């Protein structure tokens, strides 16, 4: 396999935002249909802005690094801005991923989207 970039290894070595958020505003829970990995992403939202994000991941080096990166990217972003974060953007922020590992960044994107959807669902419920 192609080697990981320095940035990926750095995030793998020191992953940011590992853990769970108590009483999160949104939780994303996704599984990777390709290799069978699992990612959980928690967000805290205030005034339509994501103020905190944490993750737990069962997966390869790329999966851990992309989870770490996506939680970094999303902090301080509005919901709309966060929804616009693509897996490519995450991979690019990590200095690229080996082609066979791109699907791990897709998982990170999906985890984020599903956490935001969860948040929007909950919001709707509290409004009605």
């Amino acid at each position, binding site marked *: 396999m192609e080697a990981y970039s320095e940035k990926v290894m750095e995030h793998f070595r020191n992953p940011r935002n590992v853990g769970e958020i108590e009483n999160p505003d949104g939780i994303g829970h996704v599984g990777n249909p390709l290799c*069978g990995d699992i990612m959980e992403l928690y967000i805290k939202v205030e005034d339509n802005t994501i103020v905190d994000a944490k993750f737990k991941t069962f*997966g390869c080096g790329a999966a851990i690094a992309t989870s770490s990166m996506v939680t970094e990217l999303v902090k301080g972003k509005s919901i709309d801005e966060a929804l616009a974060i693509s897996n490519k953007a995450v991979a690019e922020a990590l200095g690229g991923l080996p082609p066979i590992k791109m699907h791990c960044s897709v998982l990170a994107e999906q985890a984020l989207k599903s956490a935001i959807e969860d948040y929007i669902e909950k919001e709707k419920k509290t409004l009605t």
Partner: protein
Amino acid sequence: MNIIFLDYASTTPTDPEVVKVMLPYFTERFGNPSSIYSLGQEARAAIEGTRGKIAVALGAKSKEIIFTSGGTEGNNFAIKGVAYANEHKGNHIITSSVEHHAVIEPCKFLEKKGFDLTYLPVDKDGLVNPDDVRKAITKKTILISIMHANNEVGTIEPIKEIGRIAREHNVYFHTDSVQSFGHIPVDVNDLNVDLLSVSAHKLYGPKGIGALYIRKGTKVIPFMHGGDQERKRRASTENVPGIIGFGKAVEIASTYMNEEAKMLTTLRDKLVKGIFAKIDHIRLNGHPTQRLPNNVNFAFEFVEGESMLLSLDMEGIAASTGSACSSSSLEPSHVLLALGLPHEIAHGSLRFTFGRYTKNEDIDYVLEVLPKIVEKLRSMSPLYKKKNKVTNFSSKSAKEN
């Protein structure tokens, strides 16, 4: 950083003694063994001498040894060679579900060409049941191919018994001996085999050279067509330096095999015991005792293998995994699945294989580093609900008091 290499099943460093005997055959004694002048004949004599050595190590005759480019070639040669030479007798081949890709892929290729394949299951320890072999044999069976020792989990198969069954039924029997030769006794008559593949770089010889034993009288079509080399069964100018190096490697392995196996078994059992003592939610893969002296394979629940490998690499340890994430197909190891491991547990597998240069301290180091790595990755895993939270907490507070 010093690398602690614990992946000897993948390859071994070439023994300096081996390199030394090879060198003259690149420069001074570079003759082509097919040439009639003395430079050529000198090379011819050297490779024939080596053929004799390898034959003795296998309990075979010189004429039954064909040099190949390695284990993959030996397996391809044996399986396709026997299949196509005996097509008129039948089209059924029996193999197991835990073979190396170099056996499985030629089998799948033959399946596409109209051969009928049976892939026998294994038990939870990776053993093929000889009774299953007996039951699978039909009038059309022309070949049985079962590996001697498994490259991933180290299980040693009951080759002698399977060989006896094959002989009773007059079916050719091939074994892939790449992981066992040079490490445990391999004798073609004792094992009742007709074909047996070996490779030099798994026993401190050079890469790119191996051999296939073909019992006298076995019908096999040539692997390569061309010149008259290797009794016309494998054309191509001989890899003279490789062959010479292979011979030396076999000589060294034969001398030290028993001593080495004893040393490796001690290290193996120490690592197994240590891991069981320090880490919970784990499973030893492969047979507990009927396994290669140098193989340790564990599955660690709730963690993924590639991330363990990367973490070990950062600590200077080289190992291997059967995780889906580290394979190009994104499929977990077929061997671990055949043992009955669920996908997510196969995910967390780690293989350590030791060798001649492994030291007791290396095992201590692994036992110091590995529990921390597993702990760190588990703390990041959504699957890990800390079952021992309470006990951990109380033991910690007890210490603090």
